[in-house]
């Protein structure tokens, strides 16, 4: 239990009458990289968004670092500081420069002194290869650069878990590599990561575990080698043969 970063028991989620998550059991260990795959509409993004309560579960339990999170009682703002999130469409703040994007939450939420936040922010931007863009506005950046800024912005809160919601799906093909590389570096540093993606190459190379979802349920889970080379379930086989 001690090194369970995330544990989800019998999670259910409805959008109106639509039952999108049908009893999900799911765990992520510390330093583990878990990749969620599946067709669109299978519920993988919804599951990810439930993990930091951008979507509220209808039923089931969510434990973060062994502690149950109750969205009605617990301070979600405090809890979300530990869980970074990267979105498909970047969602950078367009009225702020790259560096201002990165230091916004540390200075406003954690009350980190501005000078220190700037120093740390610049280091993070160096790390994602965008040190020279600190004073540019997001509108000046390419999609891949925007996504790397979004990663730096999430890291600035020093999260213990990073969630990636199709981080390369909105990118031109030639820009996908730079974002995946940044994510690989992060994985190598031991960051706990949950990644929703259609990049099977990334899943194969970086994931510790691959989870295949279909129709709101987890169909199969296992090491990438097993899932990709020897899927046990018929649905997984069908999905993989349709995309590979």
């Amino acid at each position, binding site marked *: 239990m001690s090194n369970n970063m995330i544990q989800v028991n019998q999670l259910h989620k409805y959008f109106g009458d639509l039952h999108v998550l049908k009893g999900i059991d799911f765990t992520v260990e510390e330093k583990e990289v878990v990749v969620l795959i599946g067709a669109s509409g299978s519920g993988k993004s919804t599951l990810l968004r439930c993990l930091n309560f951008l979507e509220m579960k209808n039923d089931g339990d969510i434990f973060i670092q062994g502690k149950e999170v109750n969205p009605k009682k617990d301070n979600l703002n405090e809890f979300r500081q530990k869980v970074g999130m990267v979105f498909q469409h970047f*969602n950078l703040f367009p009225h702020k420069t790259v560096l201002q994007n990165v230091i916004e939450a540390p200075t406003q939420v954690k009350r980190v002194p501005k000078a220190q936040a700037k120093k740390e922010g610049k280091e993070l931007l160096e790390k994602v290869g965008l040190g020279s863009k600190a004073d540019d506005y997001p509108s000046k950046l390419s999609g891949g650069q925007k996504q790397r800024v979004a990663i730096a912005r999430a890291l600035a809160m020093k999260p213990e878990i990073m969630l990636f919601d199709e981080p390369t799906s909105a990118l031109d093909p030639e820009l996908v590599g730079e974002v995946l590389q940044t994510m690989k570096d992060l994985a190598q540093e031991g960051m706990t990561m949950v990644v929703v993606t259609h990049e099977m190459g990334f899943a194969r190379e970086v994931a510790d575990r691959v989870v295949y979802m279909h129709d709101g349920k987890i169909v199969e889970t296992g090491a990438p080698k097993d899932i990709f080379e020897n899927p046990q379930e018929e649905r997984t086989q069908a999905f993989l043969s349709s995309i590979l």
Partner: protein
Amino acid sequence: MYLNFISFWANFWDALVSSKGLFIEASQVTLALTAVSIVIAIFIGLFFALMKLSNIKPLEWIANAYIYIVRGTPLIVQIFVFYYGLTEVWMISGFWSVSLGLAFHNGAYIAEIFRGSIQSIGKGQMEAGRSLGMSHSLTMRRIILPQAFRRALPPLGNQFIIGLKDSSLAAFIGVSEIFAVATTQGANTFDYMTWLLVSAVYYLILVFILTMVVGLIEKKMAAGDE
């Protein structure tokens, strides 16, 4: 006919030049009415826009009722109600009752402008803020409202111009702004047309200045635009 035309404009020019002091003073009153009412209206507008977007039904109803009443009744009625209503219970000058009346009126239109511009900011911005641990109100204040205000500026500028011109209704309760001075001069000289045109010149100048100011603010806030 031709001579008439010449003499009319010569007369107009004389009136314009000779009344300069009078109308500059009146312009200051018009500007003060406009500035006071617009500043208050911005706060009223923001307040009711947030009420309308609060997802709390009673607050939405109150905001809708306010907007409906303001949009559904003539401004001159509102100004007179404010004037007679307020002076009944409170020693308040004509200037202040018109300012508050105009603020009450423009606040409803500005509320709708703000509501639209806030709703036009994609929900990804709120989600990004929340995912970083920022509270709803902090994200609203630091992320959503600055962007929404930027988008609201063109229609706000429009509303400011309407507010400036509507301040002429203050003449009907004896505030010596531009239109009041023009009609007084007209009555004294039996030459309404000349003085109404003089007042029009001052309104055009004031609207020109206001347009410039809004344009400057727009330019200043354009940082980061695509």
